[in-house]
């Protein structure tokens, strides 16, 4: 029986969920209205697997997803999300409302307050309340 590389499955599922999010984000005209002038880096940190991705939000779109993060955590343009890989996959596929994840203690967000509200509003627009 063939063995499966579990970490590879997790990595690809997280990356796939982020790419799905990127597509939804970039194709939603309402999101573009919401994020006028809002350029940020979204650091997505899977705390149980150590997988980290950085999404670049620039000029009304997620323009890049890359593995790792070279930015300083205290950079005010960085929004850091920390959760288990499974929770992150569920959040970025619309199966787990990020506001609920935050209240459940399943997600930690390090950012300014306005950025947290913006993320919640984006989630609401893409996946409903």
């Amino acid at each position, binding site marked *: 029986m063939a063995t499966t590389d579990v970490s590879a499955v997790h990595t690809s599922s997280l990356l796939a969920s982020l790419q799905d999010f990127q597509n939804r984000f970039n194709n939603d005209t*309402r999101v573009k*209205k*919401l994020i*006028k002038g809002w350029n940020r880096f979204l650091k997505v940190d899977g705390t149980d697997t150590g997988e980290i991705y950085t999404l670049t939000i620039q000029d009304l779109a997620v323009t890049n997803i890359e593995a790792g993060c070279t930015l300083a955590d205290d950079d005010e343009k960085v929004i850091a999300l920390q959760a288990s890989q499974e929770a992150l996959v569920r959040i970025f596929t619309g199966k787990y409302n990020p506001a609920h994840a935050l209240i459940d203690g399943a997600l930690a967000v390090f950012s300014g307050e*306005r950025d947290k*509200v*913006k993320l*919640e*509003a984006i989630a*609401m*627009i893409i996946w*409903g*309340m």
Partner: protein
Amino acid sequence: MPNALNLTGIALTVEQGRWKRLARSVAQNSLAPNAAEVDRDAIFPREGLKAIADAGLMALTIPKEQGGPGEGILTTAMVLEELAQGCASTAMVYCMHMSTLAMIAALAKDGQHEAFIKPIVEGKWIGALAMSEPGSGNRLWHMDSFAQRNANGYLIDSFKSFCTSCGQADFYVVPVRADSTQPPTELSLFIIEGKDPNILPIGKWDGMGLRGNCSMPIHFKGCHVPEIGRLGPPTCGFSMLFAYSLPIYQVGLSTVYLGIAEAAYRAAVDHVKKRVHSDTKQTLSQVETVQRYIAEMKMRVDEARCMVYRVAQMSDNAMVLFNELQSADLLDEVIRANPDDPFFIELAQLKFAVSEIAVEVANKAFQVCGGTAYKRGHPVERLVRDARAGSVMAPSDDSLKLIVGRQILGIAQPWE
């Protein structure tokens, strides 16, 4: 026994604490002394409202950038809880006024700040919401009356079944269909000033309880509203009522009933500690049945307070999100797409939960106080009648339960 611990479980900001103490002072010094007279003679509580205005409470939720204190729904609930313990009628009038503010603040443009927000901030204006119509009763999401456009603005002919502060308010927020061709939920919001001679209060308010709040029918009989009187875009009314009025309205109503329950509970405790039977030489508080009643009342009041504070906090969080969406002109669209979001269901649930508790606690206080409370003019007698308004005041408890049940069972809401 003195409290060494914070039993409320919420750490107030210095400002919130100040507003709460101020409201308590107004309730004790200005509202409570007149509550019996307001009730007995069905007097609109002008004096109490002036004390509230003098304390700076009339513009509590108007944002700082518009000249107000910028407080939220949780602070308003704490203020209302205090006021309602002093005089429930006055608190209800204040609640209806507060239910108009967030919407006006969010939608006001250009001259509307000067025309409408300034007199509110200066404590000169008290407002009212005129919503329920004879055709739809307490189903507040459905309006039959409509606006007619003319060269000078709009003509509004609308009959509203119940309107708190009827004939007394300085302004009314009046939702009607945007025009005769629009369906009943495509609403425009208008501000009609109380000085309009075409506003006709119908009859005299002679309610069973909340007798001071002048909740008569009102006829806006061909009122001419200039362009400046329309709030927001023509068909935004339904969404804006949901986002900016419903939260404070439902939390506010619930808090008035919480205050009624608290006042009844306190009156009962006070009574049983003082009332001495000559045969046993003991106070009523020594009777085990009474002790159990008191414990049950306290438990229910605490339950109600927990629910009110929780949903008030939730509403403040929702307001931040709604403001963010409104700033991008997306709120109307998002609310329309999510008409039975769990947040709105929490609001619906809160009101019937607390109004049922208020009736239960007031009835127990009545039972504990016995024949004394059966006499006209006793505070508990008044509170029993005041509490009873909760279940029928729109939207009625039965309508709200239908909404909650439908949401849980995945059935479309009546307004969809």
